[in-house]
């Protein structure tokens, strides 16, 4: 592949790879910004993936092309409900938040597989038939409803030289959605009263309490948002990548999202950047086998490349990250 071809391959693949991670990492940002560590992201993704696929299989006939999107909503609700378990444990019951998160992970996969066995009588679901559409050349005309009418003659973005093939070919609406959500999250967390309160609760809950902010309620809301986002992320992953749900559908992506959140310094756009970085590293390792010079190195070096790159990036120029100060500590009124 030529250099440009490599880029044309790597960038869209990276964005595609990053999309679910972005959403899940954003969920992590909300939760941890409020002071609740959420290791349970993996489990929340599992439930999202399972319910997303289940919904898709059950309702594809009724809803047709809309099904995958509606499946996201179903997945969101399911993961939100599961995240409530984490919230009750870590906020109301003052549980160690890491332990509770671990329990969520164990519970989610066990529950999902148990249900798969009960419902499908086998180890994994069938394949979905309604999928998200991929836009190989993306432009204004692809905007639903108005696009075809107003912009049918406008050339697609993907026709822009260099930039076009990189950013506007192989576009999934889910990726657009994920990136947009990163900006929405940034806006909510840094521009709205809600965001200010959320952060204050994660930094100094007692101060927030004295200012009349209901710490418990804020944290519940934050954990529920994280559940919702992780659920959507899981459902996007399952519906765009595997097309079915089984024991290995989600294996480690939740932890990668956790890493992206820390890598991105608990900042929504940072988390998005980190997820994109993972995506780049991952697709670079896949592109590697067809890039001259690199193609002859043993495969194992390509396989570990994404992980090594991440470590190098962290050590080299990202530097220290400061978690929200009260992260991981249950808030107990009156205790210093």
């Amino acid at each position, binding site marked *: 592949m030529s250099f440009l071809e490599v880029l044309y391959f790597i960038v869209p693949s990276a964005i595609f790879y990053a999309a679910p991670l972005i959403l899940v990492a954003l969920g992590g940002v909300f939760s941890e910004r409020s002071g609740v560590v959420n290791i349970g992201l993996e489990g929340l993704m599992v439930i999202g993936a399972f319910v997303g696929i289940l919904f898709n299989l059950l309702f594809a006939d009724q809803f047709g092309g809309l099904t995958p999107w509606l499946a996201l909503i179903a997945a969101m609700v399911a993961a939100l409900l599961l995240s409530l378990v984490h919230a009750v444990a870590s906020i109301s019951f003052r549980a160690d938040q890491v332990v509770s998160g671990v329990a969520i992970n164990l519970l989610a996969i066990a529950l999902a597989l148990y249900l798969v066995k009960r419902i499908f009588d086998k180890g994994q679901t069938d394949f979905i038939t309604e999928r998200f559409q991929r836009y190989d050349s993306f432009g204004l005309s692809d905007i639903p409803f108005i696009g075809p009418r107003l912009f049918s003659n406008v050339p697609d973005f993907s026709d822009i030289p260099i930039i076009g093939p990189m950013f506007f070919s192989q576009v999934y609406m889910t990726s657009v959605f994920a990136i947009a959500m990163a900006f929405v999250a940034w806006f909510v967390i840094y*521009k*709205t*009263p809600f*965001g*200010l*309160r959320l*952060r*204050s609760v994660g*930094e*100094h809950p*007692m*101060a*927030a*309490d*004295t*200012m*009349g*902010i209901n710490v418990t309620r804020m944290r519940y809301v934050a954990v529920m948002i994280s559940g919702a986002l992780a659920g959507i992320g899981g459902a996007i992953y399952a519906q765009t990548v595997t097309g079915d749900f089984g024991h290995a559908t989600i294996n480690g992506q939740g932890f990668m999202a956790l890493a992206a959140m820390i890598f991105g310094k608990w900042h929504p756009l940072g988390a998005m950047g980190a997820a994109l970085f993972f995506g780049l590293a991952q697709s670079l390792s896949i592109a590697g086998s067809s890039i001259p010079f690199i193609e002859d190195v043993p495969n194992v070096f390509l396989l570990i490349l994404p992980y090594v790159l991440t470590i190098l990036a962290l050590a080299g120029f990202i530097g220290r990250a400061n978690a929200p*100060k009260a992260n991981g500590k249950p808030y107990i*009124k*009156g205790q*210093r």
Partner: protein
Amino acid sequence: MEYVIEMLNIRKEFGSFVANDNITLQLKKGEIHALLGENGAGKSTLMNVLFGLYQPEGGEIRVRGEKVNIANPNVANDLGIGMVHQHFMLVENFSVTENIVLGSEPTKFGVTNKKDAAKEVQALSEQYGLNVDPHAIIEDISVGMQQRVEILKTLYRGAEILIFDEPTASLTPQEIIELIQIMKRLIAEGKSIILITHKLKEIMDVSDRVTVIRKGQGVGTVTTSETNPNELASLMVGRQVEFKTEKGPASPNGEILDIKDLVVTDYRGVEKVKKLNLKVRKGEIVGIAGIDGNGQSELIEAITGLRKVKSGKVLIHGKDVTGLKPRKVTESGVGHIPQDRHKHGLVLDFPIGHNIALQTYYAQPISKSGIIDYNKINEKAAQIIKDFDVRTQGPHEPARALSGGNQQKAIIGREVDRNPELLIAALPTRGLDVGAIEFIHKRLIEQRDNGKAVLLISFELDEVMNVSDRIAVIHDGEIVDIVTPEETTEQELGLLMAGQSKNSKEQGVKKEGEDQHVE
């Protein structure tokens, strides 16, 4: 006379412990009412009850004559009660404005309207003469400004009744003077104030009446103009207290600490200590007087090896210890009572016994070839707890559970017990009651009398004047003058600390003031 607040027979229990037992406090409109009591007497608890952070087990609260139930701080806010907490309730990485408006933010289309908020803060700060920078981040501003932010928070919410819990404990003399003026201005605006402080002088200066509590029980309320510090002190402690610690003249001999042209930078690389020179001799207490932020912390950290030295030298007993690790410095005979007892002084989650062993755990007789003997630790701790009157259930109690004063006594016990040649004491009495202060001062002087050297850093002129044999005034990273307490006055020190030049006299030690220049 009408009462704006009446707390009648308040009872507050923590488990089986009764922190407030039938305490009554009545606040008149327009008065400054002082609340006095030893460390752990229950003052903060009482105020937290008033502010809705704790629910009392008994008694009733009336606001403007009406019985109320203050279920949470929101209710207190609505009743016009605001509180400036003992430990600041500020989000460190938020701006001043964000901290002030938090919880009742002005918005525009659902978005925080930062511009309007900053303007409001600005206006408010001008109205009450509370100088703050609305856009500054809390962790970058001085403690004094943080204090003002705390006050603005209550005013922003329209508080009519303000509670100040030990507002002056961590302020410099200048800042205290400002704060007192602010309080007077607030009274003039029609507000009422409850003030908690351990400084009797302040009580005498500003308050109208004083309520004293001892060990969770009300002792009574007196009118300030009809009492005096001695009476107040004995009311709260239950015995006579000496304010000025008796000490004989110093008989210094031989140099122990010699600092030569020391330059130290902070984490941003800004020079905080600039070519500083200072000598301390055995058998004397040298006080470093200065306003917070003039390089004191960096100086101490550089001496004790906690911070890198940019240039210059630190000699102890003539031995160069510049750039050595903290342990090496400690072992060359230095004891260090750190400025921040929670950050550096203690491992709060460790038992107090472990904390007392924090400097000695690794060596004989506690440890032998890497094996630690916890029995020895506990024996040693028990002895220090006894010798230094640390009020605790024993070496096994977590350090966190001790009151500030007792935590401090434990630290001092730990450092003094090692009998260091040089004891560096940074703000050793911050936030402590008069009884505890007396005790600590006695210990410092005892060290001196045993022929050891003490380097005392304090923001309190009282303390510096009372305890030191010589006073080195620090300003902007330099020692601008060295004086003796007998020859100087608080006014003169204040001027020096503020950077005003004065013709220096030679102070027994050679050419200290050589390169002093003041802008």
